[in-house]
């Protein structure tokens, strides 16, 4: 079969691209290995809600129209939203169609699936950046008596045996799982490396409102000093709950969660933690202070007096004088380890030489390097800090579709 564009993946980003392609009457197909919003259906834990409030969680031509703008969507609401969006934009989605191979052909790309083959001059990779758990090599040294699980397989605390749980990683995922697992009666030790601390609400407004209004989320990839670092920043310590509570390390230690440093090795069944815990907390506190300064600098220009609560600063992260440096995994204290150490994309089906030595796509703002007509969307800081959020898809999809359309116009047919 021949078409102008094959979009790989019918998540929010692939559908946003489909919307702009249809607007331009560019013939395309969206291939999806499962159902629309597949990852949200199959790889998320039960209690998860979006980190962005509803008013912000819109898609192109599809603003939030419910009655709870300050709430946070549950997974079933996200699935419903994306499903409604697919219908509204009338996206040509082929569900249950798994891509097995993408390679160069003379005039573009051949996309092979288990339901047929397409050839197209352009391909949009919208398969996501979080397909596989990114687990450190030392995971191989965990004793067999300890259960291990990744967030992609985790659903709820009662899936885990009773007993202590070591959660490794203090991103949004790590702190949310630490919180709900500890509340379930399984005492949690949280291994903390570099992390991003945020209050849920600042001066009476959601932190995502501040990040949006002060221009943080709109910062572009080509304006950022250190893009390698920017693309590897862990997700912020945030949770979307109806009470808009802040879930930071202080909230976790107040509940009884024990903090330890970044896990460095497992030697003879003993997990060894870095002595850098105090510094990673100091770094996060300082970075948070600079961010709040930026909000405060923006606020007088952006609002009238009395519109916001007065500025304030958060209590510094409390760290024990002597955090534990080791934990005997053979002692029975720990029954389960949750590797909340991030995710990576799966490009095992991509036979075009566009990956770097670590398996990540080489691209310039979503325009894939060395593969004319190939694009990517929905990756961390692809074009803007908001690129990996649902509402970040709109600007990226519009701009990449513009680029793609210009490429098609310039190509011989």
């Amino acid at each position, binding site marked *: 079969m021949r078409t102008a564009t094959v979009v790989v993946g019918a998540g929010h980003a692939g559908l946003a691209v489909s919307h702009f392609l249809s607007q331009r009457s560019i013939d395309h197909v969206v291939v999806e290995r499962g159902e629309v919003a597949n990852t949200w259906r199959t790889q998320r834990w039960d209690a998860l809600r979006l980190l962005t409030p509803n008013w912000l969680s819109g898609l192109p031509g599809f603003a939030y129209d419910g009655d709870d703008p300050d709430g946070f969507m549950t997974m079933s609401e996200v699935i419903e939203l994306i499903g409604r969006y697919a219908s509204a934009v009338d996206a040509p989605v082929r569900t249950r169609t798994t891509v097995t191979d993408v390679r160069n052909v003379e005039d573009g790309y051949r996309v092979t699936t288990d339901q047929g083959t397409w050839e197209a001059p352009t391909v949009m990779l919208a398969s996501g950046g979080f397909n596989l758990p990114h687990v450190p090599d030392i995971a191989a040294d965990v004793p067999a008596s300890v259960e291990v699980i990744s967030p992609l397989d985790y659903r709820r605390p009662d899936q885990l045996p009773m007993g202590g749980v070591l959660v490794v990683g203090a991103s949004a995922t790590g702190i949310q799982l630490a919180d709900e697992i500890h509340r379930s009666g399984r005492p949690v030790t949280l291994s903390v490396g*570099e992390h991003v601390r945020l209050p849920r609400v600042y001066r009476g407004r959601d932190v995502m409102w501040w990040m949006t209004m002060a221009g943080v989320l709109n910062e572009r990839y080509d304006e950022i000093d250190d893009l*390698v670092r920017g693309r590897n920043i862990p997700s912020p310590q945030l949770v979307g709950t109806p009470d808009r509570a802040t879930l930071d390390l202080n909230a976790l230690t107040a509940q009884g969660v024990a903090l330890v*440093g*970044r896990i*460095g*090795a497992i*030697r003879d069944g003993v997990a*060894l933690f*870095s*002595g*850098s815990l105090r*510094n*990673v907390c*100091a*770094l996060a506190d*300082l970075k948070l*202070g*600079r961010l709040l300064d930026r909000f405060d600098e923006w606020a007088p220009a952006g609002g009238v007096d009395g519109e916001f609560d007065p500025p304030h600063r958060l209590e510094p992260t409390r760290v024990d004088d*002597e955090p534990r440096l080791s934990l005997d995994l053979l002692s029975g204290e720990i029954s389960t380890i949750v590797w909340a150490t991030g995710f990576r994309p799966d490009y095992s089906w991509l036979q075009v030489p566009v990956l770097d*030595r670590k398996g990540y796509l080489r691209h310039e703002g979503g325009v894939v390097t060395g593969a004319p007509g190939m694009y990517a969307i929905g990756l961390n800081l692809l074009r803007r800090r908001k690129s990996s959020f649902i509402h970040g898809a709109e600007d990226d999809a519009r701009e990449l579709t513009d680029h793609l359309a210009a490429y098609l116009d310039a190509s011989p047919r």
Partner: protein
Amino acid sequence: MTTSEAPTDNGVNVQALLDARTALVDSPEGAQFTWRASNEWVKGTHSQSAINNFFGLGGEQSHRSSWSFDADHPEIFASEDNGVTPVEFVLVGLASCLTAGVAAVAQNRGIQLNSVKATIEGDMDILGILGGDPEVRNGFNGIRVHYDIDADATPEEIEALVAQSQKRSAVFDVVTNPTSVTVEVN
């Protein structure tokens, strides 16, 4: 931040470091370094170390000149005190690595340093190395570093310099994280 017109000069060539990073990301084999020291027993607990060559950027490199270091133990250990103790070398390594980092980060952030002074202390229960108590570790129980920094910057900016320096410090990493050590003989 600086209010004068003079450009920040902490004597660190940040551009060279940034250029090196760009070049080495594209040719990562050049980033593989091996640092070396040789050590020879003199007498008692006294030994001498020499440092001259290292490997990096794809080839053998040397320091401008050879350096020699004496290590020993103090007289209260019934030694002759011909040099500092090995654990004090560790403190020297950590402090000098962090201070170099402070200078480099300050340069990169356009912060003029006027003076940087550090004191560093490591606490040790020597019952560990004497084998007197199996519960006591051999190494430091904790290390404290205190910086006094005078710079054309706010206290928060200075605090951030010190935090970032720890984040990028090789010796801080060596001291705070486990490292595999292989010792062979003959």
